[in-house]
């Protein structure tokens, strides 16, 4: 290994840490809305505050049904999917702003987004 290789590793670690910290700074777990997408469109949005007990949501795909459970305390996770790799199930719960679960073979995506309060600006540039 050469010196440049070590510099490259350092650069990648810095990039990863930087992007992680940036996303963490934006993450809140107060008011969340879970967005379920299939392909390139949103099929369902569920406000966490609207749920009192865990709710199950079913997305039907060409291979079968993807079952998503949303628990007001623990967050959203995928219970079952007809995909071959089951990576989406292994990802477990998401409960912070910006987190996602992707089931690529079935093109199903669950995203947690922070609720925006009425009258609050979209973005503030300082």
């Amino acid at each position, binding site marked *: *290994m*050469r010196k*440049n*290789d070590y510099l*490259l*590793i350092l650069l*990648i*670690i810095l*990039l*990863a*840490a930087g*992007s*992680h910290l940036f*996303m963490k700074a934006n993450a809140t777990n107060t008011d969340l809305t879970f967005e379920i*997408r299939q*392909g*390139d*469109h949103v099929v369902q949005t569920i406000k966490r505050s609207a749920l009192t007990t865990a709710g199950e949501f079913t997305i039907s795909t060409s291979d079968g049904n993807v079952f998503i459970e949303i628990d007001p305390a623990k967050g959203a996770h995928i219970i079952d999917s007809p995909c071959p*790799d089951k*990576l*989406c199930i*292994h*990802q477990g719960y998401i409960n912070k702003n*910006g*987190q*996602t679960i*992707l089931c*690529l*073979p079935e*093109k199903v*995506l669950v*995203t947690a*987004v922070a609720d925006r309060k009425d009258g609050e600006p979209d973005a503030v540039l300082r």
Partner: protein
Amino acid sequence: MPSYAKLTTRELVLLALLLAIAVVLRLVENALPFPIQLPGAKLGLANSITIITLMLFGRAKTVLLLTARILLVALLITGLFTPSFFIGLGGAAFSFLLMVLACQSHLFSPVGIGILGACAHNCGQLVIAMFLMQTTALISYLPLLLIIAIPTGISTGLIAKYALPIIRQNF
């Protein structure tokens, strides 16, 4: 392209062997459990074959090998023109471009080229996935995918580094 026409029998045989190894590595890797369960996170052992080919034969013949590998892997595992196929294609194309640049700049050893290729592969996959799903939400996978690329890149780079002199000696 003229460079393909100049393929000697010796080169053809070696390329075919490398292609077979790359496809088998991909199949074996699919059967191995990977500690981090994340879409797009793989060992990427087949990438070591790409590095070896790039250093032995140069760009044009590596494109030939990569195209054949992607089509064969698609037929065997993911299926042609499925989302996973396009994502794999995007990752392979992007990592190939960066590895060619890294190779020609002579700044990195095979290990560095491997790391750069693994990173580019993961980033390329992510970009295609974001495009297919029409969402930027997937960016939350970026930090982990970048970190994973370091050990997987080092391992593919080391394989290439130790295999290269042996192949050069024997062919």
